[in-house]
């Protein structure tokens, strides 16, 4: 699904910053990958390049077999709309739109009929557990709810890959658990390919695989054992253990 070859990114400036110094890896379809590493190690930079939000300095990115760096700006925009989903650290929703409107916006841009996109997005809002918040304004939602709307928006186009850059950073423990379990469930139920940046070690246990970065390089790979993962899913980020 994702194949990265010798990806480099240098931020030009007075002092050029080599944020990615030649990164190569492959991610098969349906895998939930956590990206970890210290601050400034290039995690966000990597995600921006993969999600076609920025231009890498050199290297190759194949998404579902397509050499995406050869695409024009217009084509990249369209590719993002049709095939990618991105969840930002801050709840990056449009404040003038209510929850469901935020979620169906990509489908509207794709030209889907109104009845159809209402149906699809309503179903997805149910999946992220917000069926009772459809018509709330963003300002009326909690941080966790907002992040789930953002996830719904990122998935509503049946995106091939879901990118999430520290999606839980601004959430409390309970909401972290909700969001992480949701991502895990999406991967299990829909076979959703997920790339999630995090720097909390516990969070990586929800993933199948971890890519460790340091100083712009991929330095270590780790596969999460099934029982560790199961344990995280059941017990990770619980505030009220007895209720489970």
């Amino acid at each position, binding site marked *: 699904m994702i194949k990265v070859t010798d990806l480099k990114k240098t931020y030009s400036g007075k002092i050029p910053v080599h944020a990615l110094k030649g990164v190569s890896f492959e991610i098969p379809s349906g895998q939930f990958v956590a990206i970890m590493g210290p601050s400034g190690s290039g995690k966000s930079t990597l995600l*921006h390049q993969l*999600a076609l*939000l*920025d231009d890498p300095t050199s290297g190759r990115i194949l998404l579902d077999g397509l050499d995406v760096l050869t695409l024009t700006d*217009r084509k990249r*925009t*369209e*590719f*993002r*709309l*049709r095939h*990618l*989903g*991105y969840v*930002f650290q801050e709840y*990056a929703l*449009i*404040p*003038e*739109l209510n929850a469901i*409107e935020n979620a169906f*916006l*990509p489908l*509207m*841009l794709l*030209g889907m009929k109104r009845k159809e996109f209402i149906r699809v997005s309503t179903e997805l809002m149910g999946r992220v557990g917000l069926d009772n918040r459809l018509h709330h*304004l963003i300002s009326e939602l909690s941080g966790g709810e907002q992040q789930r709307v953002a996830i719904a*928006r*990122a998935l509503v*186009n049946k995106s091939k890959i879901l990118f999430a850059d520290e999606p839980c950073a601004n959430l409390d423990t309970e909401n972290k658990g909700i969001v992480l379990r949701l991502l895990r469930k999406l991967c299990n139920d829909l076979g959703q390919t997920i790339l999630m940046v995090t720097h909390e070690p516990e969070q990586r246990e929800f993933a199948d695989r971890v890519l460790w970065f340091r100083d712009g390089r991929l330095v270590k790979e780790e596969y999460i054992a099934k029982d560790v993962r199961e344990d995280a899913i059941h017990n990770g980020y619980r505030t009220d253990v007895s209720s489970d």
Partner: protein
Amino acid sequence: MWNDLKAAAFLFSKYVTRGNKGTVVLTVLVATLAFLQINLISGIFSGALGLIYEQTKNNYVGNIVIQPGKDQWGSSEEYITQVSELKRKINAIPGIIGCSSHYTIGSVVEYDPDKTGKDIRTISWPVKSIDPKDEMQISGLHNYMLAGQYLDESDRDQIIMGREISGGYGAMLEVQSLKGVNIGDEVTVFYHNGVTRKYTLKGIYATAFPLADMTAFVTQKEMESVLGIHDRASEITIRTDDAYPEAYYIQELRKAGVELPDIRPYQDFIGLVLGLAQTFDIIKRIVLFIGLVVAGVTIFIVIFIATVSRKKQIGIMKAIGMKESIIVASYIMLSLFYAVVGIGIGLVLLEFVATPYFIAHPLLFPVGKTSLLIIRSEVATSIICMLIVSIIAGFIPSWRVSRENIIKAIWG
């Protein structure tokens, strides 16, 4: 394309319904005020100008004036001849209501109120003659008598004066006038051909058009005796039914065999006003320009603040795959909305508040009273200009922000 417009319209509708209502109201208010000031000031100037034209036509020279033209030495001191024959030709043309011939001769009018020779007032001004009956069709002087009576056909020792000659009655040029001749008083007229006559003031008129009120009239009979000529005229003024423009009737006159070279429409007789018309035009353009700048800058600032403060959201919209053109279109729709609603309210106020108000409370100009004259083409021009300006004002800021690199827009 259609789909993009629908998406832009969707965003725009949410900006309006879910955005800050105060901003919407204030921006629309500025657009309304800009539109109103453009069209009110235009309307007032057009009203004043229209009034001058109307006054010229109705109270001064009629629709068309025939003059003898220049003689072979370039002097225009000759008369139109065979006037009664000419008048018959003119009156036979369909659509012509009437015509009137005048003699005009330079003269000095003298007034000695207490007949002691101590306070002799004079004014040097042409005296004209009219056929009182014919003239009724043209300038309607008989409708404007402030005091005394209009002339009768057979009057010989009577004169009527506009209030700018007689003075009094609110004359605007009082200092140059005879400063208050009363009905029944005697004045002496020294005609430039050497003839001197004494007249009794029979009537004073005022059309409120100073140019028209600066004349003294005697009857045609009297003037022919002063000049010792017959069946001639210094000018013939013609009244039409206004069904066609003057140029049409001038053509008809020529077809009917009125072969004098100098046939001109009334517009040619307001030379001093034409300068005023040009000045009004310049002022109108300045007002239009300032109004457009005010509306344009306001909308620009509103859209600028909206887009800059939503820079991050715009970056996010692009990140999820929204085309820049959709974002720009949504803000152009917003700025057009401000302009369209502003214009709409402005039109309603213009039509149903300002126009009735100025009809009820006309403006006083030196040439008379006027209300607004709303010229459709000028209103249309101001509307089109405002729409264009608002498109530009919406386009520039939203285009600049939406063009920004996604990473920069979202993460600064």
